[in-house]
């Protein structure tokens, strides 16, 4: 029962072209397709101006940089900034805090929007679904400053809702925001509250892209909603999940820095101080741009390695990858 369409014709072997042929081909090609290249141009310019040109400035990580002398004229000092960084206990602690906070974020913050999207998908009442979505999207649009204010108030030992509730159950009130052991849970929880709803949009879009007849077929086959979620929805959006995960891993060193600045205290530096806040305090505030650039470069290298690693793993085991 094999069919005729199974066979596909071999692609014709492309004849080798001479240089002249190739240049004519190129000019013809550009003449015909210049509009496409024109549309590509803004993106290329954006990349050059905002991503490639600034790379020139990275060299200040290896220089004794003075704004007045400029990037080119500042003297080279080699690895001195990096030596200073790695001989600094607080920097090492900040690196470890960054990784710990990111790991918690990955562990709890990454699945949250997926679970939320799956839950939305199960809501049948359209009006209720819309209302619920709006409510969880909302925190995303609130600025970090306001979010921090809400968190500080919510966890306040005197008027905060959290301590009020604890009080009902007979617990003593806790000054959460000065307790190092509470900082990470509060921070990660706040992040989830703020971003899980908005983050679920991409997964909802992926779910919307699943062929509805897959579900109908499964219904006829007798699958329950739970089985459909596990056997159809999740596998169908798995490529999206993996891509998002790779992107997330690439951002592992980028902990939401404004929120930490707004929430932390010297009392919680022990668990809250991340590379970015360390750099902000010790580099930017005192105008040590070269030192800050060194720390930033270190961050970027770590992130790059992580992304490559995650992408390779994903390509090997799930056949989904960014490139």
């Amino acid at each position, binding site marked *: 029962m094999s069919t005729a369409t199974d066979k596909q014709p071999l692609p014709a072997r492309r004849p080798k072209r001479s240089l002249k042929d190739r240049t004519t081909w190129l000019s013809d090609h550009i003449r015909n397709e210049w509009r496409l290249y024109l549309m590509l141009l803004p993106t290329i310019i954006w990349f050059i101006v905002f991503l490639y040109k600034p790379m020139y400035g990275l060299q200040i990580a290896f220089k004794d940089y003075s*704004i007045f002398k400029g990037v080119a004229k500042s003297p080279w000092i080699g690895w001195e900034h990096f030596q200073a960084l790695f001989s600094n*206990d607080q920097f090492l602690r900040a690196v470890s805090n960054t990784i710990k906070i990111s790991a918690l974020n990955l562990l709890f913050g990454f699945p949250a929007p997926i679970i939320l999207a799956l839950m939305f998908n199960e809501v049948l009442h359209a009006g209720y679904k819309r209302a619920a979505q709006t409510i969880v999207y909302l925190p995303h649009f609130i600025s970090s400053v306001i979010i921090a204010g809400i968190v500080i108030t919510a966890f306040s030992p005197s008027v905060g809702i959290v301590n009020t509730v604890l009080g009902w159950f007979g617990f003593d009130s806790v000054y959460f925001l000065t307790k190092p052991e509470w900082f990470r849970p509060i921070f990660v929880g706040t992040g989830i509250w703020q971003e899980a709803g908005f983050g679920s949009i991409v997964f909802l879009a992926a779910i919307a892209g699943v062929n509805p007849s897959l579900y109908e077929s499964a219904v006829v086959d007798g699958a329950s909603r739970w089985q459909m979620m596990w056997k159809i929805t999740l596998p169908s959006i798995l490529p999206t999940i993996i891509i998002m995960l790779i992107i997330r891993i690439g951002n592992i060193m980028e902990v939401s820095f404004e929120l930490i600045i707004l929430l932390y205290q010297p009392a919680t*530096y022990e668990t809250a101080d991340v590379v970015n806040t360390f750099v902000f*305090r*010790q580099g930017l505030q005192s105008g*040590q741009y070269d030192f800050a650039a060194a720390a930033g470069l270190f961050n970027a290298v770590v992130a790059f390695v992580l992304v490559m690693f995650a992408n390779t793993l994903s390509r090997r085991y799930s056949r989904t990858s960014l490139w």
Partner: protein
Amino acid sequence: MRKLLLTTAIAAAMVATTPVVADGHLKIVEGDPLELTIQMNHRAYPVYEESWPVEQTAREWTNIHLKDVTVGANMKTDSENTGKTEALNLMLASGDIPDIVGSSRIKDFVNQFGPEGAFLPLNDLIDEHAPNLKKFFDEKPEIAAAISAADGKMYYIPYLPDGKYGRAYWIRTDWLNKLGLDMPETVEDYEKVLRAFKTQDPNGNGEADEVPYFVRQWPELIRLVTLWDGRSSGSDTYHDFMVEDGKIQHPYAGEGYREGIKNLARWYKDGLIDAEIFTRGSSARDFLLSENLGGSTHDWFASTSGYNKLSADIEGFEFKAMAPPASPSGKRIEEHRRIPIKPDGWAIGHTNEHPVETIKYFDFWFTEEGRRLANFGVEGMHYDMKDGKAIFKQEFLDAGPVNRSLYQVGSQLQGRGYFQDYGYEIQWSNEFALEGIALYDEGDYLIDQFLGVAFNAEEQKVYDRYWGSIRDYMLERQQAWILGNGDVEADWDDYTAQLEKQGLGEVLEVMNSAYKRQYGG
């Protein structure tokens, strides 16, 4: 904007008709006016307005016109003045340094980039062309020393505040009366009073919701270590070094500090201190006073005394300054004071083609007329002369917060090098502030301040390398001890060992070498 235009129009009319200094003795250039470019950024006035009546008058008198070329203007401000530094850095990075650069927090900036060549040294210019400035610095050599860079040269003319008093202790005197307590004289008294505030329900609502001691900036809590002979800072900047016995020390490594922290931890545990002291933030004073909850604080004279207007809403409300309570050893000090010299002011860019005229212009603001212009605005418009004193017009005083009104006409700019006249402030301080100041004046509680040092490149490197981490560690432990995460007595030896390990010794060494060079030790 409309209001501004209107003021400008009036100013123009006034300037044209006012006969003051019509003899032209203040003129710096003859013939065509000289135009100089200026960068000036501040949260209250993001750029230098050429339409300010004060600038118009200065033009009239000196024939020098300032032209605004501010880059990176922003109104952002935080405790570290990041916004200002940003604007200055942006200006420098743009490669164009205007003829005049004025800003708050300019000192470290010019002292770093001046020696690199970005700003002109002013010493010779002052000696030759600026008699008023020369006289001022000759009379106050410590100020000349304080503003000098590591190479011994001056790169900016500072804004010099007048008046000594900044912050004071404040207490609800009506609560004291209600509970039958006397004004506390010692730290033991103070503790008793705070405890009474907590336990005896002075606000009468039946709940122990009073917050005996509260602050807007949490380092004002640490300030209380002075009640046990500790120190929290050597200057009006928090956590700063201090001078002790002619040498530079850090207050957070001293014995009195340990004693103070130990007691503050106890106070915190007992609820004498706001439970949310570290996160309450800048609205603490507003909220706790207007809700009839706050008992005592340490805050500025002028703004805090203003809260007495709450007596309209809260029966009997009275919030008065109290003298610093005596420490166990009997000392009464007020650690905070107005620093005689701010790191704010203006400097001359290295591409300025008229340095002589510029220093003469700077000098103009130190003449009698110039100083009055910088402090009070324009005569006949904002103030009148009575018995040789500048007295603000009543309508000007009534027009809203006076310092804001002055910014709007171009007076009292901290980006301008000038010598403040306290006479300007006393005219709009309320009775409670004046009463408090009199109290502090009488007791003479103020102490000398550390005016800062200028590092050379080597010293700067050592400082940059160690200080940030040491400071972080100090603050971390400080909060932990107060919050009860650790015991200062038990941890103290580890703490000092760790400070040493992190390089406090090296930092103090460079501080002292710079100090010696600058002030002749």
